[in-house]
């Protein structure tokens, strides 16, 4: 079944490659292409790394040990494949209107998938979806009013960055985009919004190194999509603190 899935994914990747002109690759197309490729790559790697030992497993203990060993081997070899990528793939495929829509991604995410991503899953989910405002409240010496002010300023800064980034991208002013990212970075770190911080770090790297407008546009889009989730988490965390 896995091999058949890979074949479907390869067809999907091929269809995406055929669907765009290399001169006019939109952000959406680039995103879809990247996701298709990553999903294919992930499953192919999994087949290569996991199939070797799968026939020998008998007891639960040895299965678990071998799974951990395989996970470590996989992560050492391919550290760049993390949960964010995986989650993006799953989310993407849930609303995917092509050949893959009939495939049950959750079903495909079997025990081995889970073990591969287990370690990173827990860490990333905590950092992405939950913001611990108690640390910041401590720095505010328990002043809820100041904490509210900081959240408001944070939201204002993020919105300002999103606006500025759009303008700088349109004018391909990478220096100013880098500066805007630099200015917001400390605030993102201060508010412990790690997901947004990581994106901004990537934007800065993109501005300094390859200066590829498509890649930067993609990163800015990621920021724009991530921000509402972070804002919601901040609001929830604030309400929770207020209730306590």
């Amino acid at each position, binding site marked *: 079944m896995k091999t058949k899935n890979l074949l479907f994914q390869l067809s999907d990747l091929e269809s995406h490659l055929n669907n765009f002109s290399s001169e006019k690759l939109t952000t959406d197309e680039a995103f879809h292409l990247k996701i298709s490729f990553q999903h294919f790559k992930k499953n192919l790697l999994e087949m290569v790394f996991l199939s070797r030992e799968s026939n020998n497993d008998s007891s639960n203990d040895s299965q678990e040990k071998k799974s951990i060993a395989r996970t470590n081997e996989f992560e050492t070899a391919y550290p760049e494949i993390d949960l964010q990528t995986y989650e993006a793939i799953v989310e993407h495929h849930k609303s995917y209107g092509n050949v893959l829509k009939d495939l049950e991604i959750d079903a495909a995410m079997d025990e081995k998938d889970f073990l591969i991503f287990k370690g990173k899953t827990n860490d990333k989910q905590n950092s992405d979806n939950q913001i611990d405002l108690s640390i910041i409240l401590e*720095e505010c*010496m328990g002043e809820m009013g100041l904490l509210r002010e900081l959240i408001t300023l944070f939201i204002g800064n993020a919105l300002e960055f999103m606006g500025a980034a759009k303008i700088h991208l349109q004018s391909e002013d990478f220096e100013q985009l880098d500066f805007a990212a630099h200015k917001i970075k400390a*605030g993102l770190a201060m508010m412990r919004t790690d997901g947004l911080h990581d994106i901004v770090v990537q934007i800065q790297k993109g501005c300094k190194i390859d200066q590829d407008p498509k890649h930067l546009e993609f990163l800015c889009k990621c920021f724009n999509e991530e921000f509402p989730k972070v804002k919601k988490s901040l609001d929830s965390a604030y309400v929770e603190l207020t209730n306590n």
Partner: protein
Amino acid sequence: MTKKRLLLAEDDELLASLLNFRLKKGGYDVSHRANGKEVKEYLAGTMPDIIVSDIMMPYFSGMELIAYVRKELNSQIPIIIISSAGNEENVLNAFELGANDFISKPVSPSELLVRVARELNKN
């Protein structure tokens, strides 16, 4: 006992709000300025006991501020530089120009308070 005057030069309102609050709670008479132009105007009329300044500010950078205080105003008041551009070159430049201390962002307010007190106690 009179409060020590502290000039906080930081254009990031988010960080400035937190630092301003904590430094005031720490017993300092804090004046906050959000850009280099305002900093120069402030320094024309008042000499604080210590300056805490960001490096990247509009009009007048933290580096320029150090040079201005040391050379133009001929003052040796302590200057603590804060910046997320905490690379070796920036740190060395700041110290060469006469900065007394350097903190990388994100700044822990408690750490800043300790460093401010330490610099003031030296004098």
